[in-house]
C-alpha cells in the first residue's frame, strides 16, 4: 500500500514503514533503548532524505519515550534536579545542533556529518558494550577476580559550581551534567536520536548516578530535548514528516510491548552482547556507504538558494 509522504516527498509502502517501526520498536522494548539510532539509518537506507529522517525521528522518539518517562515518574525514579540541569544543557545543545544542521545542509555536508557521527558513536558504544558484557560474563565465571570500583575521583570532581543532587546522593559540579546535556542535545539534533545510548553510560560512569534513577532521569530529559529538536527542525528546515512519524509510532509502540515481554526472559549479559552486535552491524553498514565508491561521484544538492 503506497503512501505519499508530504514532507519527504517520496512514495513508500505504508506496511513497510509499520513493519520497520514494529521491528525497531521490538528491539528497543527488548533492550530498553530508544531505537532512534537504528531507525534513522534504516529510514535513510529505504530512501528517506537524511534531513527528513533525522527531523522525523526526533518526533518519533518523543512518542517512544513519553510513556516510559511517565511510568518512571510515577515510581519516583526521576531525579528532577539532575534532570533539569541535564535539560538546560540539552536545550542549549539541541538548539546549537539544529543551527549546525541548517548550516551543514546549506553547504552540502549534512549527509556526510550524519554518517560520520553514526560511525563514530555506534562504533564506540557498540565496542564498549560487547567488551563490557564479555568481561562481565568472564567475571561471573570467575568470582574471585577483583571487582572494579564504581567510579573514580578525578579532576572532574574539582570543577566549580557544586550542587547537591539528593535523589542521586551526589554532590558534584553542575557543569558535569550540563556538559553531558549539551553533548546529548547536539547528537539529538544531528543524528535524530534520543541520545540515551550516550547519556546512560555517561550518567553511570561519569556522574556516578545510582542505576535506579538513571533510566527515568534520562527518559525525562529525552522527551523534552527531542520535543525541542522537533520544534526547531520544523521551524528552521521543515523536515518533520508527521505522516511518516505517525506510521513509525504506531508500529513501534506495538513492537516495543512485545519486545519488552521477550526481554524479561533473557539474561542481562546476553542481551547486552546482542545489542552491542546490532549496534556494530549498523555502524559497519553506515561506514560502508562512506568508503564504497559511489555509482556516480556527482550528486544533486537541494536548495541552491542564493
Amino acid at each position, binding site marked *: 500500500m503506497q503512501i505519499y509522504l508530504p514532507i519527504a516527498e517520496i512514495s513508500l509502502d505504508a506496511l513497510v514503514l509499520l513493519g520497520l517501526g514494529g521491528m525497531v520498536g521490538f528491539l528497543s522494548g527488548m533492550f530498553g533503548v530508544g531505537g532512534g539510532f537504528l531507525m534513522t539509518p534504516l529510514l535513510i537506507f529505504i530512501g528517506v532524505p537524511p534531513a527528513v529522517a533525522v527531523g522525523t525521528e526526533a518526533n518519533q522518539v518523543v512518542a517512544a519515550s513519553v510513556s516510559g518517562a511517565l511510568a518512571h515518574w510515577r515510581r519516583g525514579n526521576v531525579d528532577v534536579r539532575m534532570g533539569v540541569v541535564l535539560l538546560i544543557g540539552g536545550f542549549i545543545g539541541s538548539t546549537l545542533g539544529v543551527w549546525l544542521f541548517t548550516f551543514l545542509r546549506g553547504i552540502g555536508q549534512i549527509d556526510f556529518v550524519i554518517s560520520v557521527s553514526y560511525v563514530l558513536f555506534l562504533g564506540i558504544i557498540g565496542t564498549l558494550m560487547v567488551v563490557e558484557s564479555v568481561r562481565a560474563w568472564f567475571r561471573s565465571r570467575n568470582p574471585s577476580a577483583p571487582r572494579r570500583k564504581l567510579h573514580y575521583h578525578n579532576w572532574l570532581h574539582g570543577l566549580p559550581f557544586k550542587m547537591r543532587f539528593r535523589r542521586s546522593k551526589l554532590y558534584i559540579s553542575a557543569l558535569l551534567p550540563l556538559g553531558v546535556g549539551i553533548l546529548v542535545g547536539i547528537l539529538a539534533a544531528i543524528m535524530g536520536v534520543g541520545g540515551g545510548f550516550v547519556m546512560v553510560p555517561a550518567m553511570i560512569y561519569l556522574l556516578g548516578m545510582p542505576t535506579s534513577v538513571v533510566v527515568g532521569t534520562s527518559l525525562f530529559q529525552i522527551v523534552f530535548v527531542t520535543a525541542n529538536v522537533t520544534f526547531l527542525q520544523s521551524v528552521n528546515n*521543515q523536515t518533520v514528516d508527521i505522516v511518516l512519524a505517525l506510521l513509525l509510532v504506531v508500529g513501534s509502540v506495538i513492537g516495543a510491548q512485545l519486545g519488552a515481554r521477550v526481554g524479561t526472559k533473557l539474561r542481562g549479559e546476553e542481551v547486552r552482547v546482542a545489542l552491542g552486535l546490532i549496534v556494530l552491524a549498523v555502524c559497519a553498514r553506515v561506514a560502508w556507504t562512506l568508503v564504497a565508491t559511489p555509482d556516480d561521484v556527482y550528486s544533486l544538492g537541494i536548495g541552491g538558494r542564493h
Partner: protein
Amino acid sequence: MAARFLFILVVFAIAPPAHAQRLAADLSSKEVAISTGFSGAELLLFGATEGYGDIVVTVVGPLRNEVVRRKQRVAGIWVNGASVTFYEAPAYYRIAATRPLKEIAPPGVLEKLQIGVDRIELSTHSKRSPAEILAFRKALIRNKKSAQLYSEDVSDIRLVRDLLFRSTIPFPATVPIGEYQVTVYLFKNGKPVSSQKTPLPVRKVGMEAQIYNFAHQHAAWYGAIAILIALVAGWLAGVIFRRA
C-alpha cells in the same frame, strides 16, 4: 476523453483549411494531482494536425537552481567537494517527437528553441574551466535522468494518417511541484511552422497539500502539533498496554 478526441476529429473534418499549419492538442488531465496514494502518474497528450510534418512535444518543469556536487576521496572517505550551481534549470524535462530530432530540424533551429536534453540552457556563475563546467552539466543531466526527471529524447510519437498524434508523459513519484509547460511544435521542412503551449500545474492536493502548506506557512504551529501528537500517541499507547 474519447469524446474530446472525437470532437477534435469532427472540428478538423468540417472546418475549411484556412491555414495551412493548423495544430490542436490537449492533455488527458488538466493537472497532476499528488494525493495520499500518489506513486507517479502518466498523462496522455493527444492532438491533430493537418497535412504532413513532424510533431515535437516538450514538457518543461518549473525552473529552479540546482547544485551539483562532486565527491572526492579524503583519507579513504568520500566527501562532497567541488560544487557548481546552475541557475534556472528545469526541474523536469521531457521530449518526444515523431522522428529522431536531427532528422526533423537542423541543430541551429533546435538550439534556439532549446529542444533536446543537451540543448537545455543552464547558466552558472562558476569560475571553473569550461571543460569542468561541462562535466558538471553532464552530471546534472545524468542524475536527473536516473531520477526519471529528465528523459532521453524519444521518437515515439506516431502520426496517424498525417492527422492524429498521441504521446504519453510519465511523471515519477518524486515529481517536483510547480507550473509545467507543455509545448507542441509542428515542423515542416525543418522549420517550426506552428506551436501550442499548454500550462500543466503539478500540485499536492487534499491532505498532502494541507500538511505541506501548513508545515511551510505555519512552521511553529506545525512543530507544536507534531510534538502534541507524539505526546498523546505515546501516552495513549502506555495506557492501552498497561490495561491489556
